C-alpha cells in the first residue's frame, strides 16, 4: 500500500480526532453531560481508521458499544455523535441510543450494538441480501475477543463461510473482555485459528499499526469483492483505559498497560512517518487545532440541541405507516 502524504495526514487526523473526542467525552462524563455506559476506544484507533479507509460509501459497518471511533472514521459527524451522547434530538439516533447505539443509515453505519456478538448474525444477513441482490458490497462486522466465546460467533462464521458471503469479520483482540483475560475464556487463544477452522481466510495482524491494518483491510475487501467469500482479521490491540467508567482495573498490571502504551498507534505512526520522511510535512499543530475547533463546535451543538418532546416517547416503536 502506497502511503502518500494525503493519506498520512488523513490517518493521523482521524486517529487524533478519535483520541481527542474521547478525552473530551471523559470530561463531559465527569460533568454529567454524558451518562449511561461510556466505553473508550483510546489505544485502538488505528483499527477503525484503517478499516474505514478500505470501504466505499456503499459498504456497510456494524460495530459494538465501543464504536465512537468507527462512527467518526466512517464520517458520521462529530456534532451528531456528541448530540447523541447528550441525549438530544439532533443526535444520530435522536438521543434514544446514547454512546452504545450510534446509528447513521445515510453512512450505512448500522450501530452500535450492546449485546456481545449480537451483531454478527445481522452482518451475515446484510451480506446475504447483497449477494442475493448481486450488489458488490462488503459488510464489515467488528467485535471484541470476548465475542469469540459466544455461540453466535460460531453460528455466524459458519453461515458466512457456508454461503460464501461478502463479510469482513474483524476481531479487536485487546486481551480482555471486561476484566477477564483471554486465557481464562478460550482454549485456543489464537483467535484467527478459530476462524480458519470454518475455512475462512483468516489472519492475525498488528492492530497498533494503522499501516498494517490498512494493508490487510484493503486486501481483504478486494478479496471479498472478487467473490471469494468472507475474510477474518484478528487485530492485536489494547485498550489504554478502563473497560467503562466504572472499572477499577484490578485484573491487569500497571506494567502491562505501560508496556502497551509504548505501542500507542499515534506514536507508532508518527515514528513511521518520521522514518519515511513524511512527518515534517504533517502539520500536527494545525491538525490539533482543527480537531479542537471541531470538538468545541460539536459540544456547543450538543448543548444547544433540543430534547425530544415527551409525547413522542412512543414514536418509532412501530413505523408510522404500520398498523401497530
Amino acid at each position, binding site marked *: 500500500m502506497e502511503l502518500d502524504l494525503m493519506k498520512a495526514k488523513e490517518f493521523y487526523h482521524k486517529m487524533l480526532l478519535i483520541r481527542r473526542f474521547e478525552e473530551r467525552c471523559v470530561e463531559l462524563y465527569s460533568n454529567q453531560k454524558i451518562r449511561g455506559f461510556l466505553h473508550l476506544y483510546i489505544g485502538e484507533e488505528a483499527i477503525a481508521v484503517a478499516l474505514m479507509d478500505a470501504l466505499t460509501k456503499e459498504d*456497510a459497518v456494524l460495530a459494538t458499544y465501543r464504536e465512537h471511533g468507527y462512527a467518526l472514521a466512517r464520517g458520521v459527524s462529530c456534532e451528531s455523535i456528541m448530540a447523541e451522547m447528550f441525549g438530544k434530538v439532533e*443526535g*444520530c*439516533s*435522536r*438521543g*434514544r*441510543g446514547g454512546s452504545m*447505539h450510534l*446509528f*447513521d*443509515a445515510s453512512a450505512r453505519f*448500522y*450501530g452500535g*450494538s450492546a*449485546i456481545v456478538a*449480537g451483531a*454478527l*448474525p*445481522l*452482518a*451475515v*444477513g*446484510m*451480506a*446475504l*441480501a*447483497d449477494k*442475493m*441482490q448481486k450488489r458488490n458490497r462488503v*459488510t464489515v462486522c467488528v467485535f471484541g475477543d470476548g465475542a469469540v466465546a459466544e*455461540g*453466535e460467533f460460531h*453460528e*455466524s462464521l*459458519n*453461515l458466512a463461510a*457456508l454461503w460464501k458471503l461478502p463479510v469482513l469479520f474483524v476481531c479487536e483482540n485487546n486481551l480482555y473482555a471486561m476484566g477477564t483475560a483471554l486465557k481464562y475464556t478460550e482454549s485456543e487463544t489464537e483467535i484467527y485459528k478459530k476462524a480458519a477452522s470454518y475455512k475462512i481466510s483468516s489472519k492475525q495482524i498488528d492492530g497498533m499499526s494503522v499501516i498494517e491494518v490498512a494493508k490487510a483491510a484493503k486486501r481483504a475487501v478486494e478479496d471479498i469483492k472478487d467473490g471469494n467469500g468472507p475474510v477474518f482479521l484478528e487485530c492485536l490491540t489494547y485498550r489504554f483505559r478502563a473497560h467503562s467508567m466504572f472499572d477499577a482495573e484490578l485484573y491487569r498490571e500497571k506494567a502491562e498497560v505501560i508496556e502497551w502504551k509504548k505501542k500507542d498507534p499515534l506514536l507508532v505512526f508518527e515514528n513511521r512517518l518520521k522514518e519515511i520522511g513524511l512527518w515534517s510535512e504533517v502539520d500536527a499543530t494545525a491538525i490539533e487545532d482543527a480537531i479542537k475547533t471541531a470538538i468545541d463546535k460539536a459540544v456547543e451543538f450538543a448543548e444547544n440541541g433540543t430534547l425530544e418532546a415527551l409525547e413522542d416517547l412512543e*414514536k*418509532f*416503536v*412501530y*413505523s408510522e*405507516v*404500520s*398498523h*401497530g
Partner: protein
Amino acid sequence: MDNTTTYREAVREAIRKAMTENESVFLMGEDVGHYGGCYAVSMGLLDEFGAQRIIDTPLSESSFTGAGIGAALNGMRPIVEIMTVNFSLLALDQIMNNAATLLHMSGGQLNVPLVIRMATGGGKQLAAQHSHSLEGWFAHIPGLKVLTPATVQDAYDMVGLALADPDPVLIFENALLYNSKGSIDTQGTPVPIGKALIHKAGKDISIFTYGISLFKALEAAEALAKDGIDVEVIDLRSLRPLDDETVMNSVKKTHKVIIVDEGWKSGSISAEIMARINEQAFYELDAPMARVCTVEVPLPYAKHLEDAALPQPQKIVDTARTMMGK
C-alpha cells in the same frame, strides 16, 4: 367455497404468491428446502423457486433469525421459519434485542420488515420440550406484532399482511391446524392486523380466544346452546396489538367473560385481557371473569395427562355453566 384447502396449503399458497410477486421475498429456515418443511408447508417450493430463495439453514436459530433481521435491514423481505416455537427460545435475544428494538433505538432510521413464522402448541404428545404455546408470552414485547391465524383464510391472509408490514411480525401456526380444511378467498381484502373477529355472536357470555382454541370455544358454544346459554365467540387473531375495541364492545353486550388461552395460566395473554377489561369496562362486568388456560406444568407425554393439561371444550362448557349458575 369447496372447503378443500388445508391450512398448510393456505400458508404455502400465500408464500408462493408473495415470492412470485416480489423478488425480495425469500424463505429461510431448517428443512424448508430439501425436506419440504417440517410440517410440509414449503413442500415443492424449492423446486419452484430454487435454492437461492428457499434456503435450508443449519441448526443455528439465533443466527439465521439474526440474518433475517440483517437481510430485512438491507432491502429484502425475508420469511424466517423457526421450525417450532420451542426452538425460538434460542433466538430470543435476536428477536427482543434487535428485531423489536432497532427502529426505536436508531431514532426511526432502521425498520425491520421481517416475518418470522413458527409452529406452536401442544396436543401431539411431544412432551415438555416440544409443546410450548408461547405466543401470548411473545406478545409482551413492544416492537413486535404477534399473529395467531386460526382459520384457513387467516393462514393465507396473514402471510401477506405480515409481509406488507414495515415492522417485525411473528406468525404462530398451531401445528394441529395444518390439516384443517377450509376455503380461501385470494382476491378479497384481508381483515387487517389488529382486528378481532366475531365468529359467533351471542348475548350471554363473551369468549375471547385465538388459534386452535377458537375451535374448542366454538365446540363448547354448540354444547352450551343446548343448555340455552348463548355465548359470543371472538377470535382475537392478533395478540399484539390487541383489539380492545371489539373486546370491550362484546363485554358491554354480554357482561360476562371467559378467556381461552393455550398458554400457561399465570402471566399469559388471558391475564392481560382481564386486566384491560378491568381497566376499560369494569362497570360492565356482572361477574368475575374466568379463564381456561393450560395447567402450569411442563407438558407431559401421556395422552390423558396432556389432555388434562390443555384447554378442552368441556372445561369451557363447565366454566360457562358455573358462570351462568347452571
